[in-house]
């Protein structure tokens, strides 16, 4: 059971994430645990599910199955398949066990495990599994669940298309969330915003609207907008894919600076150079599962997965 192995230095844990869009299975059981200070780069062909994976981590997409944890707080509903002792309380499990024993099998831990695995594999849990089971789920949820908005406030996100608030000035973009969520007073938030703007050399842009900025400026401001919330981890969803080539550098530069300062980052990108230089761990997602996961050196120099080899040969030309 996951809640038993809470590790203090793991900030976000996405456990066994499945995501279906209608009948299309985009993610088929991906587990991603992010430790403090880690810089995880996720690569993969388009349509592989890597962006969906990232968006599932702060629940912009709700996983179909699986759980997302922020420290010891649960952000998703309970996924019973991840809690064996809850499955044991279900009427399906009890029925199957009785059947197995009458068929002559011995009552043991092993048998329990076998039945659980079968239930999990065939997705046998139904909506109505009895009172005991329902209570157990409710208890678990009560104990661990966290308001998603509180969770997201600790997880920054940077989007491919920047998504700065078009109706607000740069300064208002930076102060809106900290002030609205009462994390800072207006004065404190503005002070912080100016400090962040100064850091990226755009303090003269404080009172302009986003439409007057270049793509690179927009993305750097989007990055400091998430920094203004003082997050524990920042998720980057292809932050340089929508930029003119000459503006990619300034954004990557800022991201490298953050990395050097020890910011925990999860980056979905096609920038292999960035992955090699900055990542502590590189993950290859394809067809909705993690195909390879390794240190950047191992990952790029001796890839094992066939599909990854093919992918790298194409992108590293």
């Amino acid at each position, binding site marked *: 059971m996951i809640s038993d192995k809470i590790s203090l230095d793991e900030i976000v844990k996405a456990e066994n994430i499945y995501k279906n869009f209608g009948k299309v299975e985009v993610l088929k059981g991906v587990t991603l645990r992010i430790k403090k200070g880690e810089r995880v780069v996720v690569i993969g062909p388009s349509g592989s599910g890597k962006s969906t994976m990232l968006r599932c981590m*702060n629940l*912009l997409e709700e996983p179909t199955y699986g759980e997302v944890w922020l420290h010891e707080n649960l952000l998703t509903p309970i996924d019973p398949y991840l809690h064996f002792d809850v499955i044991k309380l279900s009427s399906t499990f009890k029925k199957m066990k009785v059947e197995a024993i009458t068929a002559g099998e011995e009552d043991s831990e092993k048998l329990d495990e076998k039945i659980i695995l079968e239930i999990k594999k065939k997705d046998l849990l139904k909506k109505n599994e009895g009172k005991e089971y329902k209570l157990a789920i409710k208890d678990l949820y009560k104990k661990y669940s966290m308001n998603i*908005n*509180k*969770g*997201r*406030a*600790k*997880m*920054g*996100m940077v*989007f491919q*298309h920047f*998504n*700065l*608030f*078009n*109706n*607000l000035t740069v300064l208002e973009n930076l102060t*809106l*969330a900290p002030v*609205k*969520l009462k994390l800072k007073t207006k004065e404190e938030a503005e002070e912080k915003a100016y400090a962040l703007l100064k850091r990226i050399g755009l303090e003269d842009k404080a009172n302009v*609207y*986003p*439409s*007057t900025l270049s793509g690179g400026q927009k993305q750097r401001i*989007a990055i400091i*907008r*998430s920094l203004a*919330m003082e997050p524990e981890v920042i998720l980057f969803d292809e932050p340089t894919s929508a930029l003119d080539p000459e503006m990619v550098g300034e954004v990557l530069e800022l991201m490298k600076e953050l990395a050097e300062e020890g910011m925990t980052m999860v980056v979905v990108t096609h920038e292999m150079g960035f992955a090699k230089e900055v990542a502590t761990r590189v993950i290859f997602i394809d067809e909705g599962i993690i195909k390879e996961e390794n240190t950047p050196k191992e990952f790029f120099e001796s890839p094992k997965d066939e599909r990854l080899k093919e992918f790298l040969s194409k992108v590293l030309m």
Partner: protein
Amino acid sequence: MKEFFLGVWEDFYSCFLENGSYMMYLKGLRNTIIMAILACIVGLIIGIVVTIIRVVPKKNKALVVLDKIANLYVTIIRGTPVVLQLFIGYFVIFAAVKTASFIGIKETAGIPVAAVVFGINSGAYMSEILRGGINAVDFGQMEAGRSLGLSWLQTFMRVVLPQSLKSAIPTMFNEFITLVKETSVAGYVGIVDLMKIQKYVTTQNAELYMPLLIIAAIYLIIVLGLQQIQKLIERRLMASDKR
């Protein structure tokens, strides 16, 4: 030619200036404006609330039911004539309320009822207009707000709604203008609005065309004023578009 203009002036004099008959127009105008402004406020509030109900993610059953009710409201209001709604509102739903006087003026007793009915009518159209504006706002704006920990409603009110208003302003003013002119049916339930004045003046002077012309001119002036306000607001909202 001279005689024609003289005749027109004489008619105008007898229908507007003589014996202070302009006071009648002013009274009608006052009532029309009170109704229009109240209805506009009611319509805007209903419009925004109904729009929120219709676009909010349907997380629970209560919201689904509310959404159904909101859709029904829009369908019924848009599907029936405003005069009929006014009759139902005036003679059936609010029959008990309309006897009270309003803001201390006795003969305006029916005005708040009529204003609420017009507001309910306008709210349906307003919600359709706003919904269109909201759908035109990039979904990334909502996602960005949510990713920072803001709630749906916080992001909606502070980011999405203002942006949708900007694109919806021309159509919204179209609705305001329609609303002002639609109040002219209030005479059907005995409210002395601007349009109703024609009847009084015609009874007094046996003159038909002149009061109609005068009333037309007054409506036109109101609408021109609204158009100016629209331009002013549009110029203001353009600020975030400047390159």
